[in-house]
């Protein structure tokens, strides 16, 4: 395959669909992480929350199918989704209780939660299906793909909504796009959003004006669990239709990095998550060009690190420029008012 052919494939709707597909879980998790980060709670446990949601999504849908065999697959999937989200939020609650009530170190507790999720999912998977690798032996149900004919009929960009095969995108892909806007509105237009940002900036100031800091941090952590959970169930009920041990494969950590790469803004974070998605699609598809995937996989983390350094460099340069400029005006002023001098 030549490079020209390769880039031709990049400019297709299906490639766009691939990016959306790969970015969706990270967009969800990064938005969740952003909410708790802005509330002053760095969430290292996104990975674990995604993983546990992915697992319980599958198990929940399987369980629903066994309890109400005559119901529809969509119903099974919805039960699964609810179970997955519930599990992720429960895990978030554990983190919140340990951090907010027991004064646990946030980062280490987050790592603990990740280990808990990794252990618990495999442990339960083995106990339920006798299989440690994946849930392929269980019949599980995916949330559906939605064809949005109205959008698809728009000329030029309509193709973007066609999905990989004209059937539109997975329902959670749309949900992720929607979530970007919703999270922005939440953070900047609602009372809770204002308070949440205020709590992150100066909890003491909030406490003194009667803003229930702890309660808002609970809400922020639970919301981040919910969003990470959406990312998780997308992995096992959309991206794939099965649970695989450690199937999050570091996406939660990338989501965390996306928050910093996106300079803690909603659109920046979502953009960074999309970039990570793009990188992973490249990694899968560049194989055709004989570019080692290891190289491609390194690009996203490398860009993140360089971006962090560039931010710092720009900040320092701007400060230096500001100081220099102020010094010039100061000296100019001194010349005008010789009185100020000795």
């Amino acid at each position, binding site marked *: 395959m030549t490079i020209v052919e390769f880039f031709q494939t990049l400019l297709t709707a299906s490639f766009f669909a691939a990016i959306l597909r790969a970015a969706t879980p990270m967009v969800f998790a990064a938005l969740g992480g952003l909410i708790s980060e802005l509330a002053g709670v760095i969430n290292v446990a996104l990975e674990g929350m995604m993983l546990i949601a992915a697992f319980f999504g599958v198990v929940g849908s399987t369980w629903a199918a066994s309890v109400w065999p005559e119901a529809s697959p969509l119903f099974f999937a919805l039960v699964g989704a609810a179970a997955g989200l519930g599990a992720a939020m429960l895990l978030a609650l554990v983190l919140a209780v340990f951090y907010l009530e*027991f*004064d*646990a170190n946030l980062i*280490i507790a987050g790592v603990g939660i990740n280990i808990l999720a990794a252990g618990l999912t495999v442990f339960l998977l083995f106990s339920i299906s006798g299989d*440690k690798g994946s849930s392929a032996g269980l019949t599980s149900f995916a949330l559906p793909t939605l064809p949005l004919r109205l959008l698809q009929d728009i000329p030029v960009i309509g193709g973007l909504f066609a999905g990989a095969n004209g059937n539109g995108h997975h329902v959670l892909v749309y949900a992720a796009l929607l979530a970007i806007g919703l999270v922005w509105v939440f953070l900047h237009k609602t009372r809770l959003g204002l308070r949440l940002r205020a709590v992150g900036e100066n909890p003491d100031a909030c406490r003194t004006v009667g803003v229930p800091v702890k309660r808002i941090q609970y809400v922020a952590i639970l919301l981040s669990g919910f969003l990470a959970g959406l990312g998780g169930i997308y992995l096992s009920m959309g991206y794939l239709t099965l649970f695989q041990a450690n199937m999050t494969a570091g996406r939660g950590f990338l989501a965390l*990095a996306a928050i910093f790469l996106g300079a803690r803004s909603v659109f920046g974070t979502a953009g960074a998550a999309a970039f990570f998605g793009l990188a992973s699609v490249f990694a899968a598809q560049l194989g055709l060009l004989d570019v080692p995937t290891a190289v491609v996989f390194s690009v*996203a983390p490398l860009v993140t*690190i360089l971006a962090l350094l560039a931010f710092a460099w720009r900040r320092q340069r701007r400060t230096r420029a500001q100081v220099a400029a102020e010094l010039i005006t100061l000296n100019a002023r001194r010349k005008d008012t010789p009185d100020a001098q000795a």
Partner: protein
Amino acid sequence: MSSIAGGQGSVLQEVIKTLVVIVIGLLIGMVIVLFISEEPTKVFDAILTGPLPSASTLDDGTVRWRGMTRFGTFLEDSITLALVGLAVAIPFRAQQFSLGADGQMFLGALASAVVSIYLPLPGIVLIPLAFLAAVIAGFAWGWLPGVMKARAGANEIVTTLMLNVIAIQFFIYCVTFLMLDRQAGFIVTPFFQDAAILNPLIHRTNVTWMIAVAPLVCLLAYLFLSRTNMGYELRVVGQNPAFGRRMGMPVDRTVALSMALGGAAAGMAGFHIANAILKRLPSDFPAGLGFEGIVVALLARNDPRLILPAALFYGYLRAGAQVMERTTDVSREMVLVVQAIIILLIVSENLLPRLGQWIGLGRSAR
């Protein structure tokens, strides 16, 4: 955020608290086993005595030891754990949340492999050289995020996690393309030269002189922290960097150094795995050991003197879990659950008072 740099309360109090937490964690594990297993006594037996060798007397009167390998696994594992534990504990003392032990370990192993495969030298030179290469690689990969933190304020959690990905991918790239053994039938480097491979001290195990190195390194770390100016700076900066700066301490250098020293210890762990255990490097070298290091560091309250006992305890638990999985119906991952519980309980500064408060409230409500 509560401090993890350690030092609050007396050592004895901390040790007692840690022991209580371990017991609670194990009890919760036992309860899970009771629910899930049909042979709980066998499970407990496997976990508690599994890693120990057993002796049996043969007909001709000679004593035959079985299970030395299990015992060896326990020791080998404990060495690795002690080193990655140290790799986490040293930056923690400087209040740096380095999660980069994984990447540092990968590069340490890789550096050691390059020396061990390609340099035609006698063992007496080769092994120290490989060790040094691993240490330097780990040191450098730890120093990098340290400098980025100190100079640019780059969040070390993010940078170390990202550097882990880069290190692991670089490792895979090297093994797959540059160092591949085409005869092997799978993606792996050639075996190291015999001269580079550490000799086992116990038959049928990979317990090598690293068993002496690990405690020695812990001791050196302890002496470094308590007896040297740099160690003193590291502790002060960890507890109160603003104070360190006002006292004229090189705060930036100390932050970078703490992470680099952690990296050096992780590099040693990489050397141990490469030259004592695997003797060649496969592309699927195990990731995630860095996180195990966090457990060890926490159990040891970041005190190098306690790293070894903590590593032995945790290594024993892990070896027991392996035996448990092999001989019973409970999977090894149960230990991960117990481990997570221990982590959560141990970092909870306020657990007992708050629980007491809740119980008290419950009573008064009634």
